[in-house]
């Protein structure tokens, strides 16, 4: 008997960490699924203005983005430095807005959601209102009236 006992005294068995990877992988998959990388490449430089009265835009699928800003250096040689509109991945004109909106509406799974759609305007703060007004007028022409001026939270600054 003593032959076996000598091997060591019995302590509490160590907690097995074999399932730890599973837990961590679960977390990993959760984050991989939930987070979404930015899909469109930014061709214009945008620094949004600051504001305090912000409302969050829920439902990503119901938001269409319009970017306005000066082209980034890579494209400045071709496009110049004047502020431009970017729709999806391309530079565009204000006159292309109706087409863009029609496309966005077509993407909707449920036509009833049309009224809930919002156009998020991500505009650089240096941009002059002229080009913004053009976009607004085009949106109004196609009766797409819900707009959100994207801004950063100025709360921290106060």
């Amino acid at each position, binding site marked *: 008997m003593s032959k076996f006992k000598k091997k060591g005294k019995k302590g509490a068995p160590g907690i097995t960490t*074999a399932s730890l990877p599973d837990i961590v992988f679960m977390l*990993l998959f959760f984050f991989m699924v939930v987070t*979404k990388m930015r899909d469109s490449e930014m061709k214009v430089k945008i620094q949004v203005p600051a504001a305090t009265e912000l409302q969050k835009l829920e439902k990503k699928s119901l938001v269409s983005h319009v970017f306005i800003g000066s082209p980034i250096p890579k494209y400045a040689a071709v496009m110049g430095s004047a502020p431009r509109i970017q729709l999806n991945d391309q530079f565009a004109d204000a006159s292309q807005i109706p087409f863009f909106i029609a496309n966005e509406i077509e993407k909707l799974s449920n036509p009833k959601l049309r009224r809930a759609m919002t156009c998020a305007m991500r505009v650089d*703060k240096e941009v002059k*209102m002229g080009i913004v007004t053009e976009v607004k007028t085009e*949106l109004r022409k196609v009766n797409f009236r819900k707009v959100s001026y994207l*801004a950063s939270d100025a709360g921290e600054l106060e």
Partner: protein
Amino acid sequence: MPKRELPEINAGSMADIAFLLLIFFLVTTTIQTDSGLSVLLPPYVEEPPPPEKKNKRNVFSVQINGNNDLLVRGQKCFDVLTIKDKAITFITNRGADPNSSDSPQKAIISILNDNGTSYETYVAVYNQLKAAYNTLWEDESMSKYGRSYKDLSKEERKNVRKEFPMIISEAEPSDLLKS
């Protein structure tokens, strides 16, 4: 010769690898929550409607020129941040001052900007006006329901908003500084 058992692969470091991946994803991805000022644009009409004959006292006009100078009710305004208080005083006048609004329901905010106005200034002004109304709604819901505006039901919010309707009209921008 006794059969040798295969040594078990140590899975202890698996957790480290998974953690590394997890941290990588945590750092690189941002849960992007866009937030901004929500606005409902007016419907488009071919011809701008003739300027309604509104009693001048009920209009809180904010004009921004191409140099981002502000004109609030005909007076120069040097600080955007004062607009909020000015607007609140104007809206809650309730006929006391003959130059300010008759009642909150009749008060109209009018913004006129130039094509050369910077977007930053425009948003700052809009933000101030929204802030004014948000403050009024908050106060109203506090005194009427004893709860924050955020916690009200849809119906109650409607009631509060009816008391202080936000009417912001935007005139077609001028083009004084044509480049």
